[in-house]
């Protein structure tokens, strides 16, 4: 009972159908059978780290299927060796959750290094230097000194600059990890924390939270910082040192605050009839922050079109019907304000939406293989407005039928930008332009009138099989510690890269596969970590389908000083 109730709870909270669908496309895992080798050494401090698992992972760092392709364990010298590897793009990562990378203490994914491995190649000296992360532990109790069980603890970086204190937004780590939860004694223990200064809190404010079923009069805890401050500026800052342990970071929570429920109906705007089985949701509205605040998804409306959200704190919100399911309809979000009391009688009106339809084509297509894969293409559409009230769009875009046709329905009026979907997009495909009635649309934006059926849209793709293999060389200096480089390729004068940027690996190598033939401008960018500026690098290159092209990009660190002066 416990399991089901908890899961049904969470489920209703998140609204599975919508959120589950946001999963990323599973990366094709390279075969682990080949003749390549990756070897290196893991050290902790200056000493070899024995018994550390080192995983070979797909280069795509996101997705539920991010399973190790191979695994090695370090020996008494800290050495590891991953063998029989096929050529491919990988990430190599030691798994040592209590440790952080010495090279980059602040990087979230601090331990892995990317490697572009060629056939039969041996990469050695892929070394990892780790230091023990810090620990913050404490106990969370309520006003009656009873333990607060199963609450999530949030950890955020805090820095003081002069009189001003800056804190990182929510949690710097995912607080869904079990170590952020208090146990039955109210105790939590967070480890593997990069050295630095932090604030620790429990509870929720209007920025956080999702629809909470079952939260009624008892309410929820106001966000409270160690030791007992509800005002973030009065939070005691915790200093975490390398391998250090900050203990007794206790939090005393106040009594719970009252939350309120919101109810209403979903009706057909034209007939006034209630609509059943419609998923509803809400988002918090904050005047100066157009981006997502709290988003909650309720469950579906009942036979009388009724919906209900529970556990909302006072504030301004908008209620909407969640799109994303194949539907012809849309609704205009309805704003509401919670002061002191439940909100009832909201009406969300559903109207027949506009649509965009047309055909996806491959420019100059003759390639049967490309045509056969057209149905792997998904078209994303994204509203081009920063309307605070707009309902968020869930989903993974619209599928393209095998004959190339597509139809996106249930759209509100407005401008929509069409993009090539998938992360990564299907290999070899890139978006060239979007045409409407034979006219290229700037930045792929289609203007959709209310209820209009926009037809004759051409989603013009390119298909390429060129391979670009590159080497980044750093001259007159070294890169800042922890800086991660990316390379993107775009057509001359194009606003957008043709393919998403690729990571430059630990050896300065990168590979782009599936580029359409032609001339490109390569640009080097970085994640900005490690401090200092990396001088911009732009280089032109011409690639041919089915041919591998080599390129070298040179970063002249001396140029950095020039630009800074």
């Amino acid at each position, binding site marked *: *009972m*416990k399991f*089901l*109730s*908890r*899961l*049904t709870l969470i*489920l209703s909270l998140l609204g*599975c159908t919508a959120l*589950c669908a*946001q*999963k*990323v496309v*599973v990366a094709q895992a390279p075969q682990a059978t080949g003749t390549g080798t990756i070897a290196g050494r893991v050290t902790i401090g200056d000493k070899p780290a024995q*018994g550390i*698992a080192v*995983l070979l992972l797909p280069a795509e*760092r996101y*997705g*539920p*299927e*991010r*399973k*190790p392709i191979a*695994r090695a364990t370090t020996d008494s010298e800290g050495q590891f060796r991953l063998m029989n590897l096929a050529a491919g793009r990988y990430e190599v990562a030691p798994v040592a959750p*209590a440790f952080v990378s010495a090279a980059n203490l602040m990087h979230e994914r601090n331990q892995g290094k990317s490697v572009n491995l060629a056939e039969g190649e041996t990469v050695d000296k892929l070394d990892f230097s780790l230091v023990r992360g810090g620990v913050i532990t404490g106990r969370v109790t309520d006003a009656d000194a009873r333990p607060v*069980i*199963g609450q999530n603890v949030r950890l955020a970086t805090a820095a003081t600059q002069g009189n001003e204190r800056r804190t990182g937004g929510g949690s710097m780590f*995912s607080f*869904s990890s079990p*170590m952020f939860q208090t*146990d*039955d004694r109210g105790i939590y223990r967070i480890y593997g924390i990069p050295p630095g200064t932090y604030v620790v809190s429990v509870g929720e404010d209007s920025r956080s939270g999702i629809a909470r*079923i079952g939260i*009624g*009069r*008892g*309410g929820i805890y106001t966000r409270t910082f160690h030791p007992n401050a509800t005002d973030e500026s009065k939070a005691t800052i915790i200093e975490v040192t390398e391998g250090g342990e900050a203990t007794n970071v206790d939090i005393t929570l106040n009594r*719970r605050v009252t939350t309120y429920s919101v109810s209403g109906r979903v009706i057909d705007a034209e007939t006034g009839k209630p609509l059943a*089985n419609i998923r509803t949701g809400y988002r918090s509205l904050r005047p100066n922050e157009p981006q997502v605040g709290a988003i909650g998804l309720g*469950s*579906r*409306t009942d*036979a009388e079109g009724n*919906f*209900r959200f*529970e556990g909302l704190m006072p504030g301004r919100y908008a209620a909407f019907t969640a799109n*994303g*399911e*194949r539907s012809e309809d849309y609704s205009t979000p309805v704003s509401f304000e919670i002061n002191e009391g439940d909100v009832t009688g909201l009406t969300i009106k559903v109207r027949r939406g506009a649509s965009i339809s047309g055909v996806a084509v491959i420019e100059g297509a003759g390639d049967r293989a490309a045509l056969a894969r057209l149905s*792997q293409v998904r078209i994303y559409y994204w509203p081009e407005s920063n309307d605070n009230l707009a309902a968020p769009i869930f989903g*993974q875009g619209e599928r393209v039928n095998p004959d190339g046709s597509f139809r996106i329905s249930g759209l509100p009026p407005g401008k929509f930008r069409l*993009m090539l979907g998938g*992360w990564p997009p299907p290999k070899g495909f890139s978006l060239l332009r979007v045409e409407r009635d034979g006219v290229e649309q700037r930045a792929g934006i289609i203007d959709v009138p209310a209820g209009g059926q926009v037809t004759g849209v051409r989603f013009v793709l390119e298909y390429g099989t060129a391979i670009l293999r590159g080497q980044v060389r750093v001259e007159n200096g070294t890169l800042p510690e922890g800086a991660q480089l990316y390379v993107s390729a775009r057509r001359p004068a194009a606003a*957008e*890269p043709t393919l*998403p*940027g690729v990571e430059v690996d630990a050896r300065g190598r990168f590979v782009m596969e599936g580029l359409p033939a032609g001339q490109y401008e390569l*640009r080097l960018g970085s994640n900005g970590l490690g401090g200092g500026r990396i001088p*911009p690098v732009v280089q032109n290159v011409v690639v041919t389908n089915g041919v591998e092209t080599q390129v070298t990009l040179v970063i002249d660190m001396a140029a950095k000083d020039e630009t800074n002066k």
Partner: protein
Amino acid sequence: MNDRLRISVRTPELSIGRARPLIFLLVLLHIMAAAATAQTTARQPSGNQQPDGKAVSAAPPNGTITGRVLADEGHPVANAAIVAFGLNTGGPPAGDTTDADGKFEVKNLRPGAYNVQVTAPGYVVLPEAGAELGSPRLYRVGETVNFTLVKGGVITGTVTDSSGEPVIAATVRAVRVRKPTEQPAASFSYIMPRMTDDRGIYRLYGIEPGIYVIAVGGSVQSYGSVNAYDGDAPTYYPSATRDNAAELTVRAGEELTGIDVRYRGERGHTVSGFVSGQLSDPNSRYGGVSITLTQAASGMPESFTFIQSEDSTRSFALNGAADGEYFLTAMRNVGNTSEVLMAMRKISVRGADVTGVELKLEALGALSGNVVLEPLPKADCRNQRNSTLEEIAIAARRDAKTKKDEENTLPFLFFRRMRVAPSAKGEFTLHNLRDGSHRLDVQLPGEDWYVRSITLPGAAVAAATATPRAAAQSKTTQTPGVFTLKPGERLSGLTVTIGQGAARLSGRVAQAAEGASLPANLRVHLVPVEAERAADALRYMETSVESDGKFALGGIAPGRYWILARIAPAVNGNEDEERRPLAFEAAERDKLRREAESAGMKIDLQPCQRLADYVLNYNQTSQPKQPSVK
């Protein structure tokens, strides 16, 4: 100049990647989607019945369900989350949180049957003792629910590797193998897994009483996040495989310390294959198939994966499987409904990878029909509760004798106890029914109604005209309310006729022999006197007798009955198993009838009659000996 940043802006779903561990949740949620829509429950909380088991008030248009949550030591439990899932609404569940006095009030509920659940961290809800014939209690608007919670047990210890170093961030699970009563576990009890910390220490809490084994590592933890133990077979406490795992007895509120595990770090095997059948759904933008590997013995999910609907390879691979028996299930939702397509295979892992397993998605069966309410008989029937059809709960109970082990390991027990409520017009459909024999179980609001008949037009004709062999395979047997479905079969046009003006009988069983006490497991049975009703299982009633001899039966169709007290046959297997009323087994029914007839106690119940203080003499010597099934 930062192209990476630009990418993250233009590709909204990248943000999910940033929250990688969330995917764990999302994936889990997906498999639960159907279950939640159907609003099923694995076990009903222990709600105290009204003193006389009777509903107290007429159903108002909208109303409340109130109640109180107490810990077994008697103090109120504050801040417990209450959720009421309406069977008929299909709409949002409503809830409340208990106040300092443990009280709650779920407001603004439409009339209907509600499944009310409580969650309080660290506590467990004990199963209702002697729940009548495995029918979990539902509550109607205006009723009161009282929950009794006990502190869950705690298991804590340290996990180290072969060199004594702490094993960090490994998932630790408690898997229940038996209930405290030493019967095999019917269904796994889900205890939230926890992870070892940087010292290798873990602490599991909120554990239901029972006999457990502790599993560390394994692929169950690898949903979407990478860890060092992915692909390992789980190590069981103290440092064993599943077969040699030491068992731990957990009692309510007790803490077991020093449950230290020496991690073996053995590689598990891979179970791989492909999914056939309709992978994607033309009516949904979403899709995808969830695949679960479940321990056959305990019903514990071991590993989980997901195939995207557009994945042309249709293949899956689950790693970290230790030697043993498993069920492999694939499931996906049909459109935006609660219907699912399913495939299920039993597999055995023996020292090697299992490859090429085909999971063919197939549609499941359905039963649909109408509930018809007969007019109130002329008899003077005041105090009838003003019930509505929407307060009825209907379930199809699959005959547990068919493929019992499968039944126990269906993903999260989703199919076992799905109940639906008819619409205001009386229409109902039960989806996701697997092949086999199903008994339609109709739970009525209050005690003033009774099920007069359950019919399927055409079935009787078919039975009459067919050969005996065909008749045996026909959709309905002679027992009303029992239907046999072929795989994917959909039966419609059922009519459930509800009679009003039911009678009620209460009293006690008295031991005829001087000084002797009543035996345990005593049950009172009503057997229809008329010969033409001999096969009508709906006319047979039974209830348990309390230790002081008291019993009560409501919702009795008016008529003449033999009344008999007899010892219930021992339950074979686990206690969670649905117990069918004896009358649904033809042989048991005939035996019961013979015994009741020879005992010769007869009663005549009029419409709406409330017969109280009835004394039934129990003469042990006249009872035939019950063979012990166990």
